């Protein structure tokens, strides 16, 4: 556990550095937004990026407020407002897609540590509340009226060997992606049996339709962008 959070910190500082030298935060958020939209499972919450953008948005809100009371050119003001709205849209859309995924896979996310640690504090609270409410609702409306062996919220019946009523994201989904650098040796493990050993190469900038599972790690490390 300790080592993984250490790695996360390291990755965060790397991200900060990249952000400083290359692109604006809006550009980075756009990338995160596209990745999140295209990936079947929930990705790591962009803690640093979102908190930085929140600050910038608040700052801009104040600026717009100050300017609207003083006698600033209305055109100037409306351009600031547009930029503000665009950024806000992106941030809201990003958070909303994550909430949709949480609502869909809440039980799965809750019991999988790896996914659980990708959520923000607020998202974790939301998940807990969501699970509680859904449980209560299902129990009151359906489960309590079923025979005792069918009352689990996670299993079809007591004879089920594992939690078979928990929806999980389909990692076999084919996604569209683009690599930033020349990548080689991508293993398409889910290919037909005789292709299993075949390794795949990816040129930078070329679009590929590929099974999410085989590039999962590369998406997480930021080498490949989904779109």
């Amino acid at each position, binding site marked *: 556990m300790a080592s993984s959070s250490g790695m996360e910190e390291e990755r965060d500082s790397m991200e900060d550095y990249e952000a400083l030298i290359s692109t604006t935060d809006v*550009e980075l958020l756009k990338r995160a937004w596209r990745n999140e*939209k295209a990936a079947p499972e929930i990705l790591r919450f962009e803690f640093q990026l979102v908190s930085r953008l929140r600050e910038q948005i608040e700052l801009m809100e104040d600026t717009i407020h100050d300017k609207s009371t003083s006698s600033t050119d209305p055109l100037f003001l409306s351009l600031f407002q547009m*930029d503000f709205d665009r950024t806000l849209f992106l941030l809201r859309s990003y958070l909303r897609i994550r909430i949709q995924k949480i609502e869909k896979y809440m039980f799965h996310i809750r019991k999988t540590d790896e996914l659980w640690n990708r959520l923000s504090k607020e998202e974790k609270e939301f998940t807990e509340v969501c699970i509680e409410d859904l449980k209560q609702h299902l129990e009151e409306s359906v489960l309590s009226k079923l025979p005792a062996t069918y009352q689990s919220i996670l299993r079809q019946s007591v004879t089920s060997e594992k939690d078979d009523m928990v929806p999980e994201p389909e990692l076999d989904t084919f996604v569209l992606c683009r690599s930033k650098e020349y990548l080689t040796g991508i293993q398409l493990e889910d290919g*037909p049996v005789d292709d299993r050993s075949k390794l795949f190469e990816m040129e930078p900038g070329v*679009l590929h339709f590929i099974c999410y599972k085989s590039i999962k790690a590369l998406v997480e490390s930021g080498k490949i962008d989904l779109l």
Partner: protein
Amino acid sequence: MAGQSNHEPSLFSAEELEFIAEDEIVDIVPNIKMGPLNLISGDFGPFTPQIVTQAPLWLAIALKKRGKCSICPPQWMSDEKLTQVLEAERQSQEISDQLPFHYVEISRLLFDHAPDNIHEIYKVRSLIEDIRNVRFHKVQTDLEAFNGRTIAVKIKNLSAMEVNIVRPFIGRALQAFLKHDSPELIPDPERVSDRTPHVVNNAPRVTGLTKVCKKCLSMESLYSTSVDEPYTVHTHSNFPKTLNR
């Protein structure tokens, strides 16, 4: 369970693609004087009358709407350049790399908001329309080459809008192939034969699906729900669990 609607969060709507394209940078010639804009999405300006400066498309359009600037269409949007591209597209099966990723959206936005800044707009508009058609036809022919061995598809130079149109189909077709090729799913002829006779061995199964592909690749069905059709045909939901993995 909750959230089991047909909503597909992975798809970008046309508006969202336009939103992304609005961040592309264009040249504008302002006719007002305005100080630099320090926005969240970057710093632009200062703006001086008659001096060419760069701005994202959304900013350019906002100024244009208020009559504060004229937009210089990008180089590739000239009628000579597009004629060349169309020629190249017609001559080769490859998709030309001369157009930007968001060419459909950018041209559409400029046609709508800055028609007076585009030289020979009717010609440019019809050229872009032709290029789209030629390219789309190529994509359709390429798709026919799919079969059960297809585990990844490489698409060179396809634009955002084109990709978005074929995405639901390609994604599901590949997923269906993968599913039906998986070792756990080796068809048991006796059980399969009474339901879908052509799933018994490999060869006819592939052609069977290709036929369906052609059918649902017709333009109108790409936008309708019938994209689901090949999928439901090949998903045997009543099969015993072991077959469904």
